[in-house]
């Protein structure tokens, strides 16, 4: 083997791309070729240095964003009306298991004074997201939606259209969770829906929205103007924060 051949094989040798015969020939040639030995040494050094570099795994947020897109694509592809009832249930149950296993930081309401727990709120969201009739009263007009609740609930929830903030009001519904009737307002954000469950607060003061994201769901929990607010959606965490901010501002302008 002459030196140019030997030199050309250095990288393939280091990378394990030579056959056993070629490797043996190369090693033999190497013995008589100091230049190629130096080259080999350097190539190994470069390879070793690059192997030392830290490898960053894909961030959770990226994973969640992709999951959300995939779910949207799957959902758009499945024609709802022809979907057999049991698949809808199975899908809902699967989502619920995911959602319940999330564990909502700082928000354990279950079993206390009959207030809804996280799993109730997520199932509320699932009813909104997967139903053909997400709302009982469909209107973007708060003056239609707000009076609709009168006589159906023992409280009057604040209702605001947030179209100018990118969250048009779709309507409202009453949900029975934990043996109690609560108001649910449904907002749209692009092709996603946001389910906002709200009921009168038992503690005073406002709190900042705490947003938790997991598996493509974003959940926000906060207290504003005498109401406990719980929002669930498959939008991104920062969009959920924007939603809570817009809602608080709209409530503030009211007074």
């Amino acid at each position, binding site marked *: 083997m002459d030196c140019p051949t030997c030199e*050309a094989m*250095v*990288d*393939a040798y280091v*990378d394990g*791309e030579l056959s056993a015969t070629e490797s043996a020939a190369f090693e033999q040639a190497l013995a008589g070729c100091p230049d190629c030995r*130096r080259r080999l*040494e*350097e*190539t190994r*050094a*470069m*390879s070793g*240095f*690059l*192997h*030392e*570099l*830290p*490898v*960053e*795994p*894909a*961030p959770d*947020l*990226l*994973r969640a*964003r*992709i999951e959300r*897109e*995939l779910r949207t*694509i*799957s959902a*758009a*592809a*499945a024609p709802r009306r022809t979907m057999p009832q049991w698949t809808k249930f199975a899908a809902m149950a699967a989502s619920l298991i995911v959602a319940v296993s999330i564990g909502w930081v700082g928000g354990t309401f279950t079993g206390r004074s009959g207030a809804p727990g996280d799993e109730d709120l997520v199932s509320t969201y699932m009813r909104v997201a997967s139903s053909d009739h997400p709302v009982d009263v469909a209107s973007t007009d708060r003056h239609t939606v707000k009076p609709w609740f009168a006589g159906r609930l023992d409280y009057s929830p604040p209702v605001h259209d947030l179209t100018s903030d990118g969250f048009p009001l779709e309507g409202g519904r009453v949900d029975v969770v934990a043996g109690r009737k609560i108001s649910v307002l449904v907002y749209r954000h692009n092709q996603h829906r946001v389910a906002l469950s709200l009921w009168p607060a038992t503690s005073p003061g406002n709190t900042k929205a705490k947003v938790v994201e997991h598996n493509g769901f974003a959940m926000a929990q906060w207290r504003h103007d005498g109401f406990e607010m719980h929002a669930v959606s498959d939008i991104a965490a920062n969009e959920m924060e924007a939603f809570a901010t817009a809602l608080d501002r709209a409530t503030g302008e009211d007074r």
Partner: protein
Amino acid sequence: MSDGFPLGPPLVEGPRPDAATVERFRAIVLPHLDAAYGFARYLTRDPVQAQDLAQEAVLRALRYFHAFRGEEARPWLMRIVRNTWSDFRARKGVNDQPLDVVEDRAAEGPDPEESALASDRRRHVAAALAALPADTREILVLREIEDLSYKQIASVLDLPVGTIMSRLARAREKLAVELRGRLGRREHGLPDM
């Protein structure tokens, strides 16, 4: 080797993927998301842009998935990452960032377990890699960090295997030159040429 996707638009999309296709995609392609992000990270040299690139590439891969014929999924996805990056750069007029921007954040924070010397070296290696031209950088990343074979790299870059071998040799030489400008060779075990 020329059965792949054109660099840049127009791109041929398949029929709208149904739920079963999405499931198959999730099982076959999504396990390589870490690799796709890692590659995107080195191409863009920016963590935020890398996420955008990886996301767009994965969604594009889903639209192309109808053309996936059971070849190896990892190089297939890497190729789409690379093509998406070319489109990104063409679309946004993004060029390689000036180096002083990337120089200092190319490496992770110090690891207490590690000697100061090794961590210092790692930082220099990362900076030297980031300083290389895009085509040199990508071939080194595909080989050394993503651990692809010559054949797989050839399919990602759409080049003959022989070209991969010679380009890789040149790329390592360039890295050595770049590093030599940054490291004191004696302390870091860099051989003399």
